[in-house]
């Protein structure tokens, strides 16, 4: 495998690696490009929802980018957005059906948000901006990178929301873990109900952006 590719460039050249690492930080789709904010606000009440949602979005981005990139020389220019939509919509239906069959509880909690992956701006954005003009391999890496970048923010937001809102952390396959000890509650500690509602995500995302820009001064716009 590696010998064939050597002629052009190594599979994980510096440029290709950046396709994965950049979306995690410098061009994060949620905090820097402000795409896909809607689901970041809504499915972050529990960690397991956020994790499954991130996996679902990464899956759709991976295959969406790959398929569109493979078809990029065949797609008629005038209906390219429709073609992208069809690809994304079918992938989302696959995800929804698989969740319903194998992780029924999570699928019940995510409910409409799985279907709404179709309208997640990150996906159409990456297909249109990257996959249409690049080869499949870089497109796949770009898909993974952006999916992980989205997931990173989602999981961090969910961590604080669930911890402060319910005093628990829920992981897929492990279940609900109580983090705040009972003694704290008897001593007068109360869960903050605000953190279970969507507005709290805005606060956490804002703090996230603040910390991120503090650590990366080049991101600060003049």
């Amino acid at each position, binding site marked *: 495998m590696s010998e064939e590719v050597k002629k052009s460039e190594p599979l994980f050249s510096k440029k290709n690696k950046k396709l994965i690492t950049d979306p995690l930080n410098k061009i994060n789709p949620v905090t820097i490009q402000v795409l896909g904010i809607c689901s970041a606000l809504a499915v972050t*009440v529990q960690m397991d929802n956020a994790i499954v949602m991130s996996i679902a979005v990464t899956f759709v981005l991976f295959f969406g980018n790959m398929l569109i990139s493979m078809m990029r020389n065949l*797609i008629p220019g005038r209906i390219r957005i429709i073609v992208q939509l069809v690809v994304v919509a079918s992938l989302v239906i696959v995800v929804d059906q698989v969740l319903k069959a194998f992780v029924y509880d999570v699928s019940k909690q995510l409910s409409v948000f799985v279907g709404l992956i179709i309208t997640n701006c990150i996906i159409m954005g990456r297909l249109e901006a990257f996959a249409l003009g690049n080869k499949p391999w870089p497109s796949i890496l770009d898909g993974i990178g952006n999916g992980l970048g989205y997931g990173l923010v989602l999981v961090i937001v969910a961590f604080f929301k669930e911890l402060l809102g319910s005093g628990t952390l829920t992981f897929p396959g492990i279940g609900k873990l109580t983090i705040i000890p009972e003694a704290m509650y008897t001593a007068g500690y109360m869960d903050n109900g605000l953190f279970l*509602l969507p507005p709290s995500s805005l606060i956490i995302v804002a703090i996230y952006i603040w910390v991120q820009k503090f650590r990366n001064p080049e991101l600060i716009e003049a």
Partner: protein
Amino acid sequence: MAINRDSNVYTVVFATVMVVIVGGFLAFISMSLKPQQKANITNEKMQNILQAIGIDETNGIARDDAGKVFNDYVKRRITINYKGEILSDKSADEAIDPQDKLDAFNIDLRKEYSMYVKPIMSQYKGDDAKIDAEMAASPNIHFPVFVCENNGKKYYVVSASGKGLWDDIWGYIGLSEDAITVSGSVFDHKGETPGLGSKIAEEWFQVQFKGKTIEEGGAYAPIKVLKPGNELNSHQVDGISGATFTGVGVDEMLTRNLAVYYNFFSTNKGL
């Protein structure tokens, strides 16, 4: 030969081929996953019914196990109408036939509530006698009763459906052998506010119902959901702070449905 990607013919052919391929692929996925999805829904319903009995053996039972042991506990599945007439009576030996719409297990209360019960209640709002007559006359309103047995004791699991603040709520209520004392309950919802109304699906809310009764001095006494912090008698439970309307929904749903069951059991003692 270069293809002109901007020609109308190419565009139409591309679109057609794409739609056929995608359509076939999705149909295949849907068909192959359907049995598993159906099993999940059936098992979840069985899990809810078994949990509602309120006995230690089925408390916290896993969804996949519920299907296996369902018939060990649920001995009869009875469907009654608003007047308390028995429309269908199946024993555990008779398998649940998904085609048999009258089998108590197949009664879709949420659908019946939104399609038949809600229109009657909103049309004749305030006129209880008229609502009563219309509900009794409707051939589409059913009430399932699951007769369960454990260690020689009988339990009856009944079902209820109504509306919370945002969307449907529903539940299963277990009654002890006297058909008056609540032995357990399970509630679920479609879209109540997370962290507030959604708490009706949590154990601490549901265990409150255990031991409450639906009879006072020989007459029906509905279970009431009160604002938290009150002294509670044997027909009252604490509501959820910040979820007043979900509580009102649970209250209304239980009052309306348990009345039918109370009347049914008072004429069918020791079923």
